[in-house]
């Protein structure tokens, strides 16, 4: 027995486990920082020698009640972690605490921000409809989590307002009130004050283009690898102009929106992804990425359980390309949805027949389609 493995599982069980293992189990961005903050809070709330455990319980219950109260009010909790590691609450309309060194503001589920030494700013808004930070002086290095388009994250400065959808960026205001922005990852929509037009600033770009402000090594280390999402100092430096003509601005903006939507899907925020994809479709109804966009909108609709609109997207795709490469799979998806909606096979049968008309080989959905069709006599 020693050294020999026990009898193997049958193929069906091994196939199931192979698929189940594909489920992403790595910690999401910011989980490491969140857990660490929780540990620090609980350790600092630990009773000192001679105190009774009940005092800790009461303090913990009071904190939990405060958090619950703030959340019930629609105001997610925000914390500032001072350079000495202590944490203090940050309420809406509170000024950002000023420290002589870097500090970190954790805006629950919205963003994590490294606040530069001596920075002056205010948390203007933080609720389910959006978040707004105002920066009057100093710097903020932000990792903003993907947002629904109707709940924007805004950074206001003396000269512009930046609208962030899922990005690593740095905003700075110097002693003369001149503001600048540098994007390390993702894209930011920037609207100069007094202007109706907005400018898309992408990774490696900055505004104004001649600004030189960049995050320091200390700021990048403070934000941490998880929040930086692979961003490095190099990515904040301006991208040299290519010799060839750059891509048309519309395609770059379209790509940025599409990428942000995909990132939201990867971050398991299908509602946010759907909002971004819909914005892209609204801005670029005949865009270059319209086919990919349709596929991604369908993914997002199915993920949020909106079967009715998913059917609409499928029908539109099939009308566009009735013999496209994805047509059999789309017929299968439609058959599955109809089977579920109707509770019978009346409409599903024909769709499944169309899906299986051209043998799909070992396409991942084929076995499911055959099984479902077999059940629809």
């Amino acid at each position, binding site marked *: *027995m*020693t*050294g*020999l*493995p*026990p*009898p*193997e*599982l*049958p193929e*069906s*069980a091994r196939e*199931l*486990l*192979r*698929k*189940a*293992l*594909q*489920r992403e*189990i*790595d*910690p999401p961005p910011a*989980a*490491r920082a*969140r*857990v*660490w903050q*929780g*540990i620090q809070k*609980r*350790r600092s709330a630990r009773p000192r020698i001679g105190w009774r455990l009940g005092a800790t319980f009461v303090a913990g219950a009071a904190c939990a009640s405060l958090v619950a109260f703030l959340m019930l009010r629609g105001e997610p909790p925000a914390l500032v972690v001072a350079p000495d590691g202590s944490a203090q609450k940050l309420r809406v309309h509170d000024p950002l605490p000023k420290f002589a060194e870097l500090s970190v503001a954790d805006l629950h589920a919205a963003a994590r921000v490294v606040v530069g030494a001596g920075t002056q700013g205010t948390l203007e808004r933080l609720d389910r409809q959006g978040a707004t930070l105002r920066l009057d002086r100093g710097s903020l290095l932000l990792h903003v989590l993907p947002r629904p388009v109707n709940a924007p994250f805004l950074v206001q400065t003396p000269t512009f307002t930046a609208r962030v959808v899922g990005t690593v960026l740095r905003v700075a205001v110097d002693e003369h009130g001149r503001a600048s922005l540098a994007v390390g990852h993702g894209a930011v929509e920037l609207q100069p004050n007094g202007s109706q037009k907005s400018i898309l600033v992408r990774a490696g770009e900055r505004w104004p283009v001649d600004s030189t402000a960049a995050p320091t090594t200390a700021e990048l280390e403070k934000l941490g690898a998880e929040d930086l999402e692979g961003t490095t100092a190099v990515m904040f430096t301006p991208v040299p102009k290519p010799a060839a003509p750059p891509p048309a601005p519309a395609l770059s903006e379209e790509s940025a929106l599409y990428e942000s939507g995909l990132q939201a899907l990867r971050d398991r925020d299908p509602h946010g992804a759907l909002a971004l994809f819909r914005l892209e479709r609204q801005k670029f109804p005949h865009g270059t990425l319209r086919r990919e966009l349709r*596929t991604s909108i*369908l*993914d997002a609709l*199915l*993920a949020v*359980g909106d*079967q009715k609109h998913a059917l609409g997207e499928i029908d539109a795709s099939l009308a566009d390309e009735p013999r496209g490469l994805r047509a059999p*799979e789309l017929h299968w*998806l439609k058959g*599955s*949805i109809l*089977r*579920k909606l109707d509770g019978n096979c009346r409409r599903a049968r024909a769709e499944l027949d169309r899906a299986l008309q051209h043998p799909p080989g070992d*396409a*991942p*959905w084929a076995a*499911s389609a055959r*099984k*479902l069709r077999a*059940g629809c006599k």
Partner: protein
Amino acid sequence: MAREREDLRSPVAPVLSLEDVYREHFDFVYRMATRLGGPAIDAEDAAQEVFLIVARKLDTYDGSSLVSTWLYGITLNVVRALRRRSRLRRFFEREHDGELDVPIQSVDRAEVREAHRIAYAILDKLAPKKREAFILAEFEGLTCDEIAVMTGTREQTVWSRLHYARKEFADRLEKRQKGQR
């Protein structure tokens, strides 16, 4: 699963700090909590509990086992406690204790999600020690002797648990699939 090299197992207990252990092993603890706990627990809560225990017990770590082995034992106990406390599994929208639903989401994500749900629905019915042996073998790819070291049991005991766990898993899966036809 990332495995530490043998030469890290030092006869003299290494000096560890919570920050070092956290920085190097957070991902491991999180993944183990996710694997062992399944949908029933919150992996971040579990990871927090684990490192709070680590903070209290750092001075008791004597270097006789790998840090990951030590952490695994703590994670296992934390996950067991959290699972016992977990009353309601809301990972999926509905209870799926009966028939196998046809996935209606886009192909890759739907199949992966469905397979994960079914696997853990079956695993939740296994006895805890069989369940753990199964997860470590099938999800983490550990051998019986590695599992034995990790769980502090004999290799023959692990063999037996894994044998019965695999049999029970296969039987339960077959029953579910037959129930669909």
